[in-house]
C-alpha cells in the first residue's frame, strides 16, 4: 500500500518537474537579444564586413493578421541589422510596456506616450537623441516644430512618424444632394439647410419619412462634435484669452456648438441616440441609407462608399472640408508628438550602440528603404504608375506583409523624406479625400498645451474632463441649460481646474 502511494506521488511530482523543465528549454529570443546587445557590436577596424546590429523593437499591432517576416528580412538585408520585433496587440500595449519597464525587460526601441514617460525621462532613463540628429543625412530632415512639441525640458528624446495633421471633414450623400439640388455646404447656413433637407425632404424618393441628416456617435473627439466645434472657431482643447490659457469649453464658440447640436437633436436631424451610438452603428446608418451625412475622418468615405454600394449600387458619396464659420476656416490639428520612439538606457548601454541604432533609423528614412517599408516590394505589393504607387488589391496579404511595418515601424513621412512615393488613387473619392486632407493644413489650429505639462492635469485631468463631457451631452439633450453648464464649469474650476489653468499658463509664458 505504502509503496503504491509513494510511487503515485513520485509520478506526479516528476510530471510537474518535466513540465517545468521542458519550458526552460525553449527559445527565449527576447532575453537573448536585449541582454547581449554589445557582443556583436564590438568590431575591429580590420574587419570589412561589420556584424549586423541587433535591434529589438516593441510596437503595436493594429492588424488582425500575425505579421510575416518577409519585409523584416528585406529591411535587415538593406540596413545590415538583425531585428527582433515584438508585436503587441494594441489593447494591451500599455500594460505590456509597463510590465517590461518594471522588470527591466524593455527592448531597445519602443513606441511610448510622452505623458506616461515624462517623469522617467526626467529621471534620465532614456537617451537624449536630439543632439545627434543633425549628424545624419536623413534624420536631420525631421520637422523641427514637431520635434519641439515633443521636447521634455527642452530636449528631444523621441523619433516620430508623420501622421496627417487634420483629416476630418464633411462626408455626404452626393446622390441625395443632387436630387435636392444642393451643393456642398460652404458655411453653417448651408450645412444646416442640407441636413434639414436630408431629413425632411425625402431625399431617397420613397415617400417615407425615414431619413435623417447627420449620423453621429458618442465619441466627442473623433465623432462630429470637435470638428464642428473648430468650424465654429473654438480653440483646440486650449486657447489663449487675455493673457491666460483657458480650456475650450470656457469659450463662447463652444457654447454655440452645443446649441447647434441641441437644435439638430430637437429637430430630429441627428440620430436621437447618438450619445450611445457606437462607431459601427454610426457607419451602419450611412451604409443602410438612413443617414445622409457623416462628419469625421475624410478617407473613411472610401470604405463607407464601398459598403454603401453593396447595399445600394446607385448611391455615391462626396467629401468636403471648407465650412466657413464665424471666424473663417478653422480645423483642429491632431496632436503630433503625443508619442514617439523612445530609446531606454536599460537596453542600450553605450553611446556607440545608440549611434548604430540611429544609423538604422537614418536608413529607414532614405528613399529606398522608406519606400520598402511604406509600400513594400515593387511588383508584389504595389506597381508604379506615373511615378506613383498603386497598391495590390489583396488586402489580406497587405495586412500580413506590409501594414504592420508601414504603420508601426516606419518614421518620418512625405514631408520629411523626399523621394518617398505617393499613392496614386484610382478612386476619385479617395483622391479628393486625400487632397482635402492636405488642404486642411492651410487652416490648422494647434493645441498650445501639447508641449507643456501640468501636474494637476496628470492627476485629475481625465476625471475632470469627463465631468465636462457629461455636461455637454446633458446640454445637447436639453437636460441642463446654459446656467447649468456654467455651474459644472465652476465645479471644474473648483475641483482642480483653476490649478490646471494656472500651471499651463505659467508654462506657456515661460516657453514664449
Amino acid at each position, binding site marked *: 500500500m505504502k509503496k503504491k502511494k509513494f510511487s503515485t506521488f513520485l509520478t506526479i511530482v516528476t510530471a510537474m518537474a518535466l*513540465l517545468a523543465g521542458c519550458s526552460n528549454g525553449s527559445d527565449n529570443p527576447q532575453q537573448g537579444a536585449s541582454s547581449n546587445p554589445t557582443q556583436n557590436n564590438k568590431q575591429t577596424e580590420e574587419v570589412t564586413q561589420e556584424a549586423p546590429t541587433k535591434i529589438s523593437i516593441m510596437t503595436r499591432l*493594429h492588424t488582425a493578421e500575425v505579421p510575416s517576416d518577409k519585409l523584416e528580412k528585406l529591411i535587415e538585408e538593406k540596413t545590415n541589422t538583425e531585428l527582433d520585433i515584438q508585436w503587441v496587440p*494594441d*489593447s*494591451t500595449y500599455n500594460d*505590456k510596456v509597463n510590465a517590461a519597464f518594471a522588470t527591466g525587460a524593455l527592448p531597445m526601441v519602443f513606441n511610448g506616450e510622452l505623458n506616461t514617460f515624462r517623469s522617467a525621462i526626467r529621471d534620465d532613463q532614456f537617451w537624449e537623441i536630439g543632439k545627434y540628429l543633425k549628424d545624419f543625412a536623413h534624420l536631420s530632415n525631421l520637422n523641427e516644430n514637431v520635434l519641439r512639441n515633443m521636447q521634455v525640458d527642452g530636449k528631444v528624446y523621441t523619433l516620430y512618424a508623420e501622421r496627417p495633421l487634420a483629416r476630418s471633414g464633411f462626408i455626404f450623400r452626393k446622390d441625395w444632394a443632387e436630387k435636392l439640388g444642393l451643393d456642398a455646404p460652404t458655411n453653417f447656413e448651408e450645412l444646416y439647410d442640407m441636413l434639414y433637407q436630408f431629413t425632411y425632404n425625402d431625399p431617397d424618393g420613397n415617400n417615407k419619412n425615414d431619413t435623417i441628416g447627420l449620423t453621429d456617435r458618442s465619441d466627442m473627439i473623433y465623432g462630429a462634435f470637435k470638428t464642428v466645434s473648430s468650424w465654429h472657431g473654438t480653440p483646440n482643447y486650449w486657447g489663449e484669452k487675455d493673457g491666460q490659457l483657458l480650456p475650450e469649453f470656457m469659450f463662447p464658440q463652444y457654447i454655440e456648438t452645443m446649441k447647434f447640436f441641441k437644435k439638430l437633436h430637437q429637430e430630429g436631424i441627428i440620430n436621437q441616440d447618438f450619445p450611445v451610438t457606437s462607431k459601427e452603428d454610426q457607419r451602419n446608418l450611412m451604409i443602410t441609407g438612413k443617414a445622409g451625412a457623416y462628419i469625421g475622418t475624410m478617407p473613411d468615405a472610401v*470604405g463607407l462608399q464601398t459598403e454603401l454600394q*453593396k*447595399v445600394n449600387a446607385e448611391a455615391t458619396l462626396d467629401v468636403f472640408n471648407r465650412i466657413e464659420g464665424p471666424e473663417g476656416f478653422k480645423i483642429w490639428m491632431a496632436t503630433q508628438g503625443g508619442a514617439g520612439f523612445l530609446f531606454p538606457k536599460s537596453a542600450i548601454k553605450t553611446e556607440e550602440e545608440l549611434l548604430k541604432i540611429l544609423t538604422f533609423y537614418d536608413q529607414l528614412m532614405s528613399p529606398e528603404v522608406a519606400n520598402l517599408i511604406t509600400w513594400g516590394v515593387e511588383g508584389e505589393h504595389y506597381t508604379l504608375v506615373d511615378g506613383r504607387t498603386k497598391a495590390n488589391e489583396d488586402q489580406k496579404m497587405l495586412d*500580413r506583409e506590409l501594414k504592420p511595418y508601414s504603420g508601426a515601424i516606419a518614421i518620418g513621412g512625405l514631408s520629411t523624406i523626399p523621394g518617398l512615393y505617393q499613392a496614386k488613387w484610382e478612386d476619385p473619392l479617395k483622391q479628393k479625400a486625400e487632397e482635402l486632407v492636405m488642404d486642411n493644413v492651410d487652416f490648422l489650429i494647434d493645441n498650445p498645451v501639447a508641449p507643456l505639462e501640468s501636474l494637476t492635469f496628470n492627476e485629475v485631468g481625465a476625471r475632470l474632463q469627463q465631468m465636462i463631457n457629461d455636461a455637454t451631452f446633458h446640454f445637447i439633450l436639453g437636460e441642463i441649460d446654459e446656467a447649468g453648464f456654467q455651474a459644472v464649469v465652476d465645479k471644474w474650476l473648483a475641483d482642480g481646474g483653476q490649478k490646471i489653468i494656472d500651471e499651463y499658463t505659467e508654462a506657456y509664458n515661460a516657453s514664449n
Partner: protein
Amino acid sequence: MTYDKSWGSKIFDSVNIILLSIIGLVTLIPFVYVFAGSFTTVAELAEKQFVIIPTQFTFEAYRYIFSTNTVSRAMGVSVGVTLAGTLFSLILTILMAYGLSKRDLVGRRLIMFLVIFTMLFNGGLIPSFIIVKELGLIDTYAALIIPSALSAFNLIIMRNFFQNLPEGLEESAKIDGAGSWNILLRIVIPLSMPVIATISLFYAVGYWNTYFQAVMYINDVTKWPIQVILRQIVILASALTGDTSDFGGDYVAPPEQGIKMAVIVIATVPILVVYPFLQKHFTKGAMLGSIKG
C-alpha cells in the same frame, strides 16, 4: 421508476416545460442571429438588421478568416493548451480538494483561509510578471498553464463535494485496510464524476479563453492562442482604429459584419460542444449502487 400520475403533477410538468421552452428560445435566438449572420452576405446584413435564415448563403466570412494559417494555428495552440491545462489543473485540484475535505486534517481551517485570501487580494500584474519571468516561463506554452493552474473557486467547490460524500464509504474501505491514495483513486473519484466533469468544464473554458496571459507572457506571435487573434479581428471590425492618428499611417479597412460574427462562432462553438459530452456524467443516483453494493 414510477412517475407521479396525479393531475397536479401533470400541470406542474406542462407549465415547467412551457417556461423552459421560452427560456430556451430567449437564450438561443441571439446566438442563432450571430450564427446565421456569419453565413450571410454583407448586403443582406446591412439591409435587414436581424437575419435568422439567410436568403443568400455564403462562406465568404469563413474563407476570409481561414485564408491564412494564422487562425488555424492559433486554434491548435488553444486546443493544446486547453487539453494539457485542464488535465494538469484537475490533478492539482482533486488532490488538494480531497486532502482539505478531511475534517480531521490539522491546519485545515488555516489553509482554507489562506486560499480564500488569495481570491480577494492580488499583488497585481507586474509582480506576477516578475515571478513568471524569474521562473523562465516567458514565451513558453507553460506560461499559459502553470500560473493559472489552480482556481481557488474550483477548489472550494470540489472540496465541498468531497465533504458531502457519505462517511460510511470511506470507513468501510479503511477497515479493509485501504490507504488515503487508494480511497481517493478507487472510491472517491469514480463517485465524484459529476463534480469532476463540472470542474473540468470550468477549467477548459478558462483555458480556452486565455487572452491576457498570452499577450503579457508570450512575445512570439506564432504561439498566440485563438482569443488573441480573434479579439484583434473584432476590435478592427468595430472600425475604431482608423481614427486616432497616433498610429496607423495607412488606412486599414475594417472587416465586415459577417466576419465579426464568424469570429464569435469560431471562438465559442468548440467549447460549446464539450458540455453535451460531459452531460452523461450528470446521471442521478450514481452514488447509490456503491453504498448498497
